[in-house]
């Protein structure tokens, strides 16, 4: 099961948050886990929009055999990130934000992966696992 949502406007970010909530509720995640992942999704969707020039998000149910989880992937074809370690530093921003987006999303999720290179766009994947 997966869904792909476009991220080209503020309203798309709101729609994505709602869709992530619906998916998490359907999987039986608790309120605090929902809130954390929706917040992380909001940060990453904004990055896609602001820094990546727009893109798309994929919401997917995943399993590693023992556990089930919700995976969110944010893809843009923007300028990419030069220095990932710097971009993950709290307080560092290249665009007038608070610089909590990437690092904050990483802390709020169970899994975090970033794939980027200058000129090659950015893909950020996060996941929340559900323990049964």
């Amino acid at each position, binding site marked *: 099961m997966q869904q792909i949502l476009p991220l080209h406007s*503020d309203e798309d970010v709101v729609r994505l948050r709602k869709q992530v909530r619906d998916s998490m509720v359907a999987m039986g995640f608790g309120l605090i886990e929902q*809130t954390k992942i*929706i917040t992380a999704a909001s940060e990453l969707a904004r990055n896609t929009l602001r820094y990546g020039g727009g893109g798309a998000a994929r919401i997917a149910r995943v399993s590693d055999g023992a556990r089930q989880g919700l995976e969110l992937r944010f893809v843009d074809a923007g300028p990419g990130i030069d220095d990932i370690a710097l971009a993950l530093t709290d307080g560092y921003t290249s665009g007038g934000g*608070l610089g909590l987006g990437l690092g904050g999303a990483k802390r709020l999720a169970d899994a975090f992966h970033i794939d980027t290179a200058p000129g090659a766009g950015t893909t950020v994947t996060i996941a929340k696992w559900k323990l049964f």
Partner: protein
Amino acid sequence: MERIPILRMGRLLLVTIQVDMHDRLAMTLQDDLSTRIVTDRATGVLIDISALDIVDSFIGRMISNTAAMAKILDARTVVVGMQPAVAITLVELGLTLEGVSTALNVERGIKLLEWGGA
């Protein structure tokens, strides 16, 4: 254009955010509030976020900026009604809401603004 209503109660301004905020809406609210503090000669601003499911870094920055501007305009800001899950998430996100006073609900927020402290 979509706007969040600002209510006046004596020298206080009350904002109850009841929609899922997108970034432009947050910026408009920040501008509207600073204007209204001056035109209404307000001494306090209450921002009720009890209906907000999430507060991300952008909304957090809007709240902090509003509080900072209000302070310069001689008004104090109290954020009320934050849901526990939102508070937990904010801490993990690393957002400190510096310079912003908080209260459990509108009633306590009004007391805080009327009786000082904060």
